[in-house]
């Protein structure tokens, strides 16, 4: 037995490169231990431990990002992990997402008789899986990371096991998730099989590696198995990010899932999906750009139109958020097409847009978590009647969040949309840009309908009574000082990024 081979493999296993992910998983395991050893009255500190641990990791990862040299890309673990400036930035993104989801989890679980610690445990593991996913450079790591987070999400969506809506959402998500994973896998097997075929030019013995696959595909761009495999992989990813025509699960799952999980799905899952699609299209599938540019442009246009027209008739705010999330996926997909068309700033624009989307979405979901009643799936726009009068602080967060999602200046979402649209314009995709701007105009209708319900008195006729000072319809959870701090951070982020981006955008464009 030749041990030298193993020595060569082991030399590239630099575990310190994955220190954030390892620390997150250790923290998750630590929570399990704490649940066992702590006395019953001390167990309520577990969520604080989870959030504090993530904040420490966020600070450390930010320091590492700031001090990072410009040329810091590296391949580890026998070329299975590729670390780039993008993966370092996305670590910050997912840590922020994990922190805010944990915070929403404390709000959500405060009102319900549910197991508490498991929620934070799964959120931490899924956050680590997101980070591995965006660094993967090999289909084995890619698949394992993707399934770790998908199965974590099945559990999280069905977390409220006393609610049949949550269970139903979990079941729907599981069936469609398994279905899309199977298609993704069939695509992978076709690519693996054809790229390892010794009879074809450019074949490789490690054909699941993205670099080898890229070499192979540029030499055989018209092979039917290559095309079929690439399309199946993209279909599998399209299911995960919910673009037309694979968006059917989005409204139901978003409505049934607990509010923090809806936020997690809407923000982090979508972001990870897009980074993976960029990695794939910009890496292995670069040789197929001629096929994918028109295909993705049509899909992006349809997604924007669907995502903005479908919420117009909705009264349930979780469905509105889900469907408008489809529209945001459409804008981002248009940005991906711009990358393929050679726009230099599109990549940075997508990452910046994702950050503004994170801030805006979490501000809105934070308000929703406070308004949510015992039946979490029933969150109607009517619940926001007289909202601003009784909860001015939450109403401010709602306006900033919705305004940012709609893209109203001077909020962060406006700058995000502006840069993304400039990128699309520079790529010469004028029709797509027109559709996107039309979509933004339509989206203002439903976002502002929600704000109107919260701020302006609507003279209801008949059974609801017409006195001006009537009480709110639902009982809103008052934010504790810590919750107010978290919402304050989100609102400040939205306002600051809207007025002043500093060198942030330049740095982003420079790094990517």
């Amino acid at each position, binding site marked *: 037995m030749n041990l030298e081979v193993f020595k060569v493999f082991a030399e590239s296993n630099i575990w310190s490169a994955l220190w954030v992910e390892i620390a997150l998983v250790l923290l998750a395991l630590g929570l399990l231990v704490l649940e066992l050893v702590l006395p019953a009255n001390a167990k309520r500190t577990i969520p604080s431990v989870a959030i504090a641990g993530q904040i420490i990791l966020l600070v450390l990862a930010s320091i590492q990002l700031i001090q990072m040299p410009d040329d810091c890309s590296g391949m580890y673990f026998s070329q299975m992990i590729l670390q780039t400036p993008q993966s370092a930035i996305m670590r910050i993104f997912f840590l922020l997402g994990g922190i805010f989801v944990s915070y929403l989890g404390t709000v959500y679980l405060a009102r319900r008789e549910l197991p508490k610690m498991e929620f934070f445990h799964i959120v931490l593991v899924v956050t680590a899986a997101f980070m591995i996913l965006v660094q993967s450079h090999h*289909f*084995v790591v890619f*698949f*394992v990371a993707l*399934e770790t987070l998908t*199965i974590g999400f*099945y*559990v999280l969506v*069905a977390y409220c*096991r006393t609610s*049949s*809506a949550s*269970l*139903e*959402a*979990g*079941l*729907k998500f*599981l*069936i469609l998730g*398994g*279905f899309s*994973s*199977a*298609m993704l*896998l*069939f695509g*992978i*097997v*076709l690519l*693996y*099989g054809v790229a*390892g*075929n*010794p009879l074809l030019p450019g074949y490789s*013995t*490690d*054909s*699941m590696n993205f670099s080898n696959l890229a070499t192979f595909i540029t030499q055989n761009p018209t092979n039917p198995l290559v095309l079929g495999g690439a399309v199946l992989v993209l279909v599998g990813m399209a299911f995960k990010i919910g673009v037309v025509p694979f968006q059917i699960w989005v*409204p*139901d799952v978003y*409505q*049934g899932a607990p509010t923090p999980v809806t936020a997690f799905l809407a923000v982090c899952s979508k972001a990870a999906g897009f980074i993976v699609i960029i990695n794939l299209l910009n890496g292995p599938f670069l040789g197929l750009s001629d096929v994918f540019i028109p295909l993705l442009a049509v899909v992006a246009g349809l997604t924007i139109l669907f995502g903005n027209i479908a919420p117009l008739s*909705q009264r349930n705010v979780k*469905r509105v958020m889900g469907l408008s999330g489809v529209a945001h996926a459409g804008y981002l997909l248009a940005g991906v097409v711009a990358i393929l068309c050679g726009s230099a700033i599109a990549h940075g624009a997508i990452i910046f847009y994702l950050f503004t989307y994170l801030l805006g979405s979490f501000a809105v979901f934070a308000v929703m978590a406070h308004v949510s009643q015992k039946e979490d*799936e029933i969150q109607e726009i009517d619940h926001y009647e007289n909202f601003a009068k009784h909860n001015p602080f939450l109403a401010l967060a709602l306006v900033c969040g919705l305004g940012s999602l709609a893209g109203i200046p001077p909020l962060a979402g406006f700058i995000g949309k502006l840069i993304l649209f400039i990128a699309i314009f520079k790529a010469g995709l004028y029709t797509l840009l027109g559709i996107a701007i039309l979509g933004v105009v339509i989206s203002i209708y439903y976002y502002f309908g929600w704000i109107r319900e919260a701020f302006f008195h609507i003279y209801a006729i008949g059974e609801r009574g017409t006195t001006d000072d009537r009480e709110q319809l639902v009982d809103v959870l008052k934010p504790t000082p810590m919750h107010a701090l978290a919402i304050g951070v989100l609102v400040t982020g939205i306002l600051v990024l809207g007025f002043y981006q500093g060198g942030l955008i330049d740095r982003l464009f420079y790094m990517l």
Partner: protein
Amino acid sequence: MTLHSVILVAGILFITGFLGVLLRRNTLIVLMSVELMLNAVNLAFVGFSRYNNTMDGAVFVFFIITVAAAEVAVGLAILVALFRRRQTVMLDTINQLKD
């Protein structure tokens, strides 16, 4: 046994599973169809692995089996919990969430 016959069988299995997910209304059968699709992928991996003379595909099969087992464990747990509340596993009747 040529590569073509292996891939043909895998393709037929995959399409059977695909149609099963789309057409059947019993949740258990739908879950079984998803498993059938995953196993079609396993068969194709083994076939390609043998033909290409690389071990990656054969190793990947173990990951797929593990993931499929985890998925079924979560799926059946959700299904049992749902059955306790609704006394049904038919997809037609599991339609509380809709427009």
